[in-house]
């Protein structure tokens, strides 16, 4: 059995390495596409924006926004802020010199102190919709925190029978700025943390193309049936399980190599950092196994190579779209973010993002590894059952 497995795996790998299109899919296309998408999302950073702030209030609540939010550690490296007059702010937006402008009206602090409504205006340029969306989110979140905190303070002060003092208003602004703001940019991008494009789209494209890379293993079973070599293999007393194991082994070697080469290439060329190497390898192995299991199951449903091709492409693209391979996961609507957890792509990407954003090692990716491994084992077992019947038919 082991001899058969190794011989078939060696033969399959030799065939794959002769196939130029297979090499492109495994090693070149993921890198090129990651570079293109990475550049489209802003080069080496996940996000850059320039904002103008027109502070007509000059009070502590406005300062809480400019100093506490826009200059916060999570944003200050990604956002350029220019303090300007209200009229100039709009002009800058019109000329496209900034992505958005915040207009903080006179009397903002006083309104908050007295518990009256106030309006913060956000003017968007439209050239960079993500920057505009982030600007709006920043303002809305700050306003929401002010409302929640301010109501409590106002109620307390009402009970005390006097309006808030200047010092109390400053503390209110500071508390609002320190609140759970969903807008430290990356919150809307990758689940609350900043992540460079190369660190996201490197693994993302590696996983996307991994499915195509490993699908050859299952499809070669169909091909061997069609060209008659499967009958000949079985006539040599090779156990069917050994033949199938050989094909899975070849797919595993090529799939793992593909992801590891992508890791190396994005690290060397883009300076990407995928995180702890042991955890990356664990996540790679479990992702490869899940891709092998799913593609094998899909292929065993097909009766011809053409059908297998069609089914595989449909499933791979669906999983990639739902799993967040083409956009930052956090940019998907919340419902789709939940749906992404039904895909191995979604889980694998979460693992890679966690590694980059949170650091840590195996423990950080334990759940994504376990889930993708489970998906691989379940679909692989079903595929093996169907493939044995297919081979012996």
């Amino acid at each position, binding site marked *: 059995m082991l001899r058969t497995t190794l*011989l078939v795996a060696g033969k399959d790998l030799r*065939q794959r390495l*002769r196939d130029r299109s297979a090499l492109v899919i495994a090693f070149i296309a993921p890198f090129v596409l990651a570079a293109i998408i990475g550049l489209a999302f802003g080069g080496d950073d996940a996000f850059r924006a320039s904002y103008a702030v027109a502070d007509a209030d000059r009070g502590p609540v406005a300062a809480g926004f400019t100093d506490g939010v826009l200059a916060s550690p999570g944003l200050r490296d990604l956002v350029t802020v220019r303090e300007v007059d209200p009229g100039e702010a709009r002009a800058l937006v019109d000329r496209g010199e900034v992505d958005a402008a915040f207009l903080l009206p006179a009397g903002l602090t006083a309104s908050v102190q007295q518990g009256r409504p106030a309006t913060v205006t956000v003017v968007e340029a439209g050239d960079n919709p993500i920057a505009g969306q982030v600007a709006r989110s920043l303002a809305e979140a700050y306003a929401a925190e002010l409302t929640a905190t301010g109501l409590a303070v106002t109620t307390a002060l009402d009970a005390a029978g006097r309006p808030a003092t200047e010092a109390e208003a400053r503390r209110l602004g500071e508390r609002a700025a320190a609140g759970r703001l969903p807008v430290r940019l990356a919150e809307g991008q990758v689940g609350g943390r900043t992540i460079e494009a190369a660190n996201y789209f490197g693994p993302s494209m590696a996983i996307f193309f991994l499915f195509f890379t490993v699908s050859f293993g299952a499809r070669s079973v169909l091909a061997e049936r069609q060209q*008659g*070599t499967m*009958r000949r*293999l079985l*006539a*040599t007393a090779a156990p069917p399980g050994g033949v199938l194991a050989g094909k899975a082994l070849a797919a595993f070697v090529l799939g793992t190599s593909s992801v590891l080469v992508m890791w190396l290439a994005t690290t060397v060329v883009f300076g990407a950092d995928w995180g702890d190497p042991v955890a990356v390898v664990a996540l790679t192995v479990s992702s490869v196994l899940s891709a092998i299991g799913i593609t094998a199951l899909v292929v065993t449903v097909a009766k011809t190579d053409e059908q297998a091709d069609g089914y595989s492409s449909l499933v791979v693209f669906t999983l990639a779209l739902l799993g967040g391979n083409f956009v930052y996961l956090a940019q998907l609507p919340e419902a789709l973010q939940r749906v992404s957890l039904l895909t191995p792509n979604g889980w694998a990407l979460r693992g890679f993002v966690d590694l980059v954003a949170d650091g840590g090692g195996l423990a950080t990716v334990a759940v994504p590894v376990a889930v993708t491994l489970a998906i691989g084992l379940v679909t692989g077992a079903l595929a093996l059952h169907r493939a044995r019947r297919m081979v012996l038919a």
Partner: protein
Amino acid sequence: MDDGPVLWCKDLRKRFKERLAVDGVGFEVAPGETYGLLGPNGAGKTTTISMICGLLRRDGGEVTVAGASLDRDPGQVKAAIGYVPQDVALYPDLSGLENLRFWGRMYGLAGRELEDRVGATLEVVGLAERAGDKVAAYSGGMQRRLNIAAGLLHRPRLLVLDEPTAGVDPQSRNAILGNVEALGGEGVAVLYTTHYMEEAERLCDRVGIIDQGRLVAEGTRRELVATVGERDRIELAATGDLAALAAAAAGLDGVDEAGVVAGGVHLVAGDGRRLLPRLLEAAEHAGAEVTSVELVEPDLEAVFLHLTGKALRD
């Protein structure tokens, strides 16, 4: 090595849903013997050899190859068989050499022995010069020859060839038939399926005629012809007294029928070749001059027609 048949099979049966594909087929093949399974497409030839090679589960029957039972020791049986499928079963993106090395390893060969066998087999099938080329670049005939080579590498006791010349040009067909003829001399038992009557007549020591899943007759060509009572036909083109010639011929021992036809005499006889000298002598005595002789001996096509009521290529 025992002296018994290399292949012995009995009462093989296989049903595909409502269709009985093989119904009680049994025969044996001795060392060095080439046994042909002759029948039209769909007669059950491939199903029969698939069961013998352990590639298809039998509904009934027994198979023994080189003394090993397929039921008890399928591994030993498969190791003793060289299987050459009907279609070219090779990897087109690998070279001829790489294909043979792979198939040799699958049959357990390794190292020096593998290299020696691969080299020798390439010589036998005349592909040594093109061994490094991808199989996809081979002609159809070359692919067929390599297809056979892959089944010969491990020097099997029984070589099973499933219509190995289907769709092959005449030159390559000749080369393939030459290869198969040589195997008998080396003591290899050959089971050869075909629907080409000429191939069966040229190659096979014995022939089994199969139709609709049943082995309807088997034996040497002469035995089969005798079994069905087929006779030789002789067409004599002659001038002179044709009626006297016909009467003289009818009186010869072994002649069943003789009659005058346009430009000559038509005869039916048991053994035309033996009869010819006496026939020419009788013509001379009858005052007729024979200008040409055509002897038509009954072939397996005629036997098949007689046994099944249809032609081989129906």
